[in-house]
């Protein structure tokens, strides 16, 4: 009986297979009908945007998508990188006597057609302060009071003059009261108000940017249409007459860069909004319809020391290490040349703040010279070897383990790096640095750790020797110097991961916050960089470049700026090609 049952089901299966195959092959034909539609801009992203709730969004892809909708008061000019008014009509007016700023809004509408007023701005600021929204709260903590002078004008009262108010505080995205008021009210009744607010699901954000989300299929795509009420349309801002000129945008998810590149070549993508590994460049350049953009980033990749305890509490050792590290090798080999050298914590491209007169440790030296120089510094400071790295003939040899000035042998130490899946470059740099340090008898071990574990090790438990980390998107305002090296941030979960402590630096850093005069602030910031590079709690390693590619068949007019062509300007400016 069983046997018969199976036989009959086998027969049914056979028929099923035939039907299935016909279906599949008929779908080939179907796919060929994929027509070229210039009015749809197809953008690839590497991962699903986690959320459309702007307050929760901490992943890069959510922010990319949200940047099409939620807008800031001020943005950076693509060329000069200066702040320019965006939702605001003009630059803020500072009144020193009341320590207040006045901001006037442009006439703008939300994508549902209602007006954007100063009330919305007020609401946004109050929401940030009330819920203590991470990353934003600290930027508004020092703002005493916000008031609406009229429907288009807002006045911000500060407790004291703060330099970052314009550059950082005023660049928060503005949300509408109509979208969030009820949510906020309901969240406040919860035991954990912030969690309730963050966990509120937004399906279709109400923004005022160039595009409106029309459809989303989770895991597959996001579909945007042009915002009819976009305030910037046909206006000339920063020398560009804004669009948007494409009617629709589709965001597709391409988990692997290889496949995204095939899609670019094939034409199912116009642009992949994510880094492309350098290895692809040659292949991309072969295709005529592909254009490759290499842009600078405002980023910092560095090696940090734990200066709280031995051995790296000794600045001489840190200097020796920075001499041993061959940054050119890392840049030319590991990053394939797609990175720029760093001599300071502030990237070179950030010309206004960058201090160009800093020591470039070991720059341009050969391996032998590096070892000799580092050896000289360490012997001067009392380090000893049983068999030193430089023998009597002045040649480098394999040294025995090093002894600290107090005569004790140096303990093995680790170089913590993120794992290769997260960032292969940093992991590879860690390994190669370990080998260089061994040339001097320093017992280094490179150890990649999962990113979360690495950060908790470095920031919370603070039990480590050295680490390699990076910031891929450093703000153009160098206020981060204060976060990284001010001794008051040397605490659990604080950003002073090295435990750097320099009273002079603290004084300068505190002064830099209050320095509203930009020239004075520049001087302080440059002085701070000098102090850091003398004490080297961090060794800046490299500032990678962003490699992106577009398919030129459908659209043109991408705007290149620091951080690549994936920016608001490009979204507003790309035009379909007339074929």
């Amino acid at each position, binding site marked *: 009986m069983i046997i018969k049952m199976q036989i009959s089901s086998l027969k049914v299966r056979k028929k099923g297979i035939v039907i299935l195959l016909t279906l599949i092959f008929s779908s080939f034909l179907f796919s060929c009908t994929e027509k070229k539609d210039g009015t749809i801009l197809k953008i690839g992203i590497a*991962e699903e945007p986690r959320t459309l709730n702007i307050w929760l969004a901490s992943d890069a892809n959510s922010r990319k998508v949200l940047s099409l909708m939620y807008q800031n008061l001020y943005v950076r000019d693509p060329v000069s990188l200066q702040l320019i008014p965006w939702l605001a009509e003009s630059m803020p007016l500072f009144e020193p006597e009341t320590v207040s700023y006045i901001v006037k809004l442009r006439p703008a509408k939300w994508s549902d057609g209602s007006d954007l007023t100063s009330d919305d701005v007020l609401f946004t600021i109050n929401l940030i302060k009330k819920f203590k929204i991470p990353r934003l709260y600290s930027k508004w903590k020092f703002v005493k009071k916000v008031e609406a002078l009229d429907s288009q004008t807002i006045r911000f009262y500060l407790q004291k003059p703060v330099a970052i108010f314009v550059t950082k505080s005023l660049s928060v995205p503005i949300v509408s009261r109509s979208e969030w008021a009820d949510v906020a009210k309901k969240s406040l009744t919860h035991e954990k108000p912030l969690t309730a607010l963050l966990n509120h699901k937004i399906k279709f954000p109400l923004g005022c940017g160039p595009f409106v989300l029309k459809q989303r299929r989770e895991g*597959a795509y996001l579909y945007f249409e042009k915002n009819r009420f976009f305030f910037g349309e046909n206006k000339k801002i920063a020398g560009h007459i804004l669009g948007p000129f494409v009617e629709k945008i*589709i965001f597709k998810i391409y988990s692997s860069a290889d496949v995204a590149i095939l899609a670019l070549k094939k034409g199912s993508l116009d642009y992949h909004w994510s880094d492309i590994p350098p290895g692809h460049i040659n292949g991309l350049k072969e295709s005529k319809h592909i254009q490759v953009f290499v842009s600078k980033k405002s980023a910092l990749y560095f090696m940090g020391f734990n200066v709280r305890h031995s051995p790296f509490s000794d600045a001489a050792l840190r200097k020796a290490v920075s001499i041993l590290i061959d940054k050119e090798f890392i840049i030319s080999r590991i990053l394939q040349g797609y990175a720029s050298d760093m001599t300071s914590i502030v990237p070179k491209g950030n010309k206004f703040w960058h201090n160009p007169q800093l020591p470039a440790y070991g720059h341009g030296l050969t391996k032998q010279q590096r070892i000799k120089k580092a050896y000289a510094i360490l012997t001067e400071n009392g380090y000893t070897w049983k068999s030193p790295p430089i023998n009597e003939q002045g040649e480098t040899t394999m040294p025995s383990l090093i002894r600290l000035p107090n005569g004790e042998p140096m303990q093995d130490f680790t170089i913590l790096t993120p794992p290769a899946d997260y960032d292969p470059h940093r992991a590879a740099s860690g390994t190669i640095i370990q080998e260089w340090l061994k040339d001097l008898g320093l017992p280094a071990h490179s150890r990649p750790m999962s990113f979360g*574990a690495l*950060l908790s090790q470095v920031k*919370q438990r603070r039990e480590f020797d050295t680490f390699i980390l990076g910031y891929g998107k450093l703000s153009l305002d160098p206020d981060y110097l204060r976060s990284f090296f001010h001794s008051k941030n040397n605490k659990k979960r*604080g950003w002073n991961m090295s435990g750097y402590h320099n009273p002079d630096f603290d004084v300068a850093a505190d002064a830099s916050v209050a320095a509203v005069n930009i020239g004075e602030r520049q001087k302080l910031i440059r002085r701070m960089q000098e102090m850091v590079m003398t004490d080297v709690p961090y060794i800046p390693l490299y500032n990678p470049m962003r490699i992106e590619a577009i398919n030129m068949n459908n659209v043109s007019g991408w705007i290149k700026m620091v951080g690549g062509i994936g920016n608001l300007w490009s979204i507003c400016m790309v035009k379909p090609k007339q074929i």
Partner: protein
Amino acid sequence: MNLRRLIIRRSTEIFFIFFVILTILFLLFRLAPGDPVSRMVDPSMTTEEAEHLINQLGLDRPLWSQYLFYVKNFFTGTLGNSFHYGEPVAQIIGQRLPNTILLFTTSIIISCIIGIYFGKIAAWNKGKKLDVWMTIGALVLHTLFLPWAALIIIWIFGYKLGWFPLNGMLTPEIWINPETGIFARFLDVLHHMFLPLFTLCIIHFGSYLLIMRSGMLETLQEDYILTAKAKGLSAIEIRNRHAAPNASLPVVTSVGLSLAFSVNGGALTEIVFSWPGLGRELIFAVSNNDYPLALGSFLFISIVVLVANLIIDILYAYLDPRIKY
């Protein structure tokens, strides 16, 4: 009678096993270094904000209370909220799971059918060239390095030949058009499914072929086959009606046993093909320290495997009257 006892016994076992897994995983996640807040690398996130967020996420409470809370959440069916999505984990799983099941079950069924079919032929031609080549071919396919093979398949069929879409589950251009009919949408998904399905089938079908082959060889030795031969039935009839159905039973059990193992391959395939399934979500969640989501997906996958094993056991007991539990 026996069957019911089997189900009750296995279900209680499953419940206990599951609870142990839950507890171990929970502890693992909470005791491991790193939390979602510390990985937010943004210098403008101050200590105060981080601590506030940790408090709001309930991560500063004692471990036992978090555990009880989690168990409660589990039984109320929400599984807690994902840190990054902000949505209940159950909801996210609910969205991803159908995609995984679609890909997974289809691939297992297809590879089973193909494996049984070719295994039958191979065993029938034992010792001949056909058999040797089939066996070697099956072994080669079985040991292919999946992510590598998948990328090469994409390159050939998706790019060079251009027959199939490169990845994803559907063509947005077609789906955003409200006029697209249901049939066209169905075809579109089918078209997208082909390559991941093909990859999974290639990897799995080899092992089914081998199991079927040996099962078949064994069955062919048995008395009733001889009886059938003595009765003068044709070779094909003996092969297809008598030997094959019984020989395919081990294939069914092996599906159950290898299920956990095939989940691995499923997750890899989902990643390479950007298929919005649960395995891909789990791997992302793990690398983003999104504990509730990772924990939830993991538990869910183990439930699915446990229950599938139970179903297969029952099916097996039902199909083969000789099996007594």
